[in-house]
């Protein structure tokens, strides 16, 4: 059995760990609220852009002269997986869930004989991906200096991606991030980034009827060509915002669990400490009584 002194030291150490996890939980909760607000503030823009894209999509037919971002390069041999993770750890299974989703797609693509490379946003996915797919990471975006994600950050990434696309570094880009549902649930999500998937949504058919007389300046194709890179930036921005909220949510839950576990540990150690102390006292008493009787 551990000595009284050793137990005391352990209790103190677990208590200070509990203090840290508790503080981290509070910080995550505060940041989560802010991240959620940012995500909500960005929603109107994304919704309107999607509506405009849908109504344009129903008017433009994809032909050989369509912009490459929409029509694709004509092959789908080289795939780029854009994996958005966090810059910091201690967020439960947040990062490993995203990386797992990316690996699943990567393995499926490799099995089909496609070329796969990775483009990382945030540093937490690097170690695993580097180990499993050595030499496949083409670039890593460092976000450690960014406190709150701004649209310009997403814009930079999207311009870099479009440049690489134009240079022919890849044919298809997939984006992986964690969609925020609640503080308890974050769903790893995959969306196709490039070429822009245009689905004639049911809303699009309705909009086409209503906006039949819309005038376009310059014309549909030019507006669409203008919109496509913007759409990619918006998708990235949304993913980053969702990711930020998910990260904080995940960290909050993880730290809540850690605090609770530390509490249980302290209880257990305290009981053990009291029992040991009691046993030591009893032994001492027996020794004294036995000594007195011997006289």
């Amino acid at each position, binding site marked *: 059995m551990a000595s009284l002194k050793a137990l005391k030291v352990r209790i103190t150490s677990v208590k200070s760990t509990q203090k840290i996890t508790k503080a981290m939980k509070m910080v995550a909760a505060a940041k989560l609220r802010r991240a959620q607000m*940012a995500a909500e*503030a*960005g929603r*109107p*823009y*994304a919704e*309107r*852009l999607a509506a*405009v894209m849908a109504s344009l999509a129903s008017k433009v037919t994809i032909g050989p002269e369509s912009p490459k971002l929409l029509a694709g390069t004509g092959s789908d041999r080289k795939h780029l997986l854009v994996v958005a993770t966090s810059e910091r750890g201690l967020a439960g299974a947040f990062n490993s869930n995203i990386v797992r989703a990316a690996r699943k797609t990567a393995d499926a693509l490799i099995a089909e004989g496609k070329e796969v490379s990775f483009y990382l946003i945030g540093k937490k996915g690097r170690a695993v991906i580097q180990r499993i797919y050595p030499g496949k990471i083409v670039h890593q975006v460092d976000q450690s200096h960014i406190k709150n994600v*701004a*649209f*310009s950050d*997403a*814009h930079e990434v999207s311009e870099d991606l479009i440049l690489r696309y134009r240079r022919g570094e890849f044919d298809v880009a997939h984006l992986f991030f964690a969609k925020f549902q609640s503080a308890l649930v974050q769903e790893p999500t995959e969306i196709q980034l490039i070429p822009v998937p245009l689905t004639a949504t049911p809303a699009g058919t309705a909009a086409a009827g209503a*906006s039949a*007389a*819309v*005038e*376009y*300046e*310059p014309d549909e194709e*030019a*507006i669409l060509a*203008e*919109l496509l890179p*913007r759409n990619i*930036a*918006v998708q990235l*921005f949304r993913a980053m915002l969702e990711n930020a909220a998910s990260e904080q949510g995940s960290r909050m839950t993880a730290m809540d669990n850690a605090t609770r576990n530390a509490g249980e540990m302290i209880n257990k150690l305290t009981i053990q400490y009291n029992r040991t102390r009691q046993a030591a006292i009893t032994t001492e008493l027996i020794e004294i009584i036995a000594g007195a009787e011997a006289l």
Partner: protein
Amino acid sequence: MALHFELVTPEKLLRSEEVYMVVVPGTEGDFGVLQGHAPFMSVVRTGELAIYSGPTTVSARIRVEGGFAEVSEKGLTVLAESASEA
């Protein structure tokens, strides 16, 4: 006599209000939008957007950077990449 005007950036909904007229810097020239404008869509260039609260009174000027404007029966919506009061 009011036009519903919304200015949205990716970060937030900047303005949503009733105004008299808005002059938007389009890629093919500035254009003014009054109430009852025909459905219209245009790419916006970097420039100044002027909000009129009356026929001759400019209530605000906003610097917008890239984006596009959409006029529908619901009013004018400007989706700007970034916007700041000038």
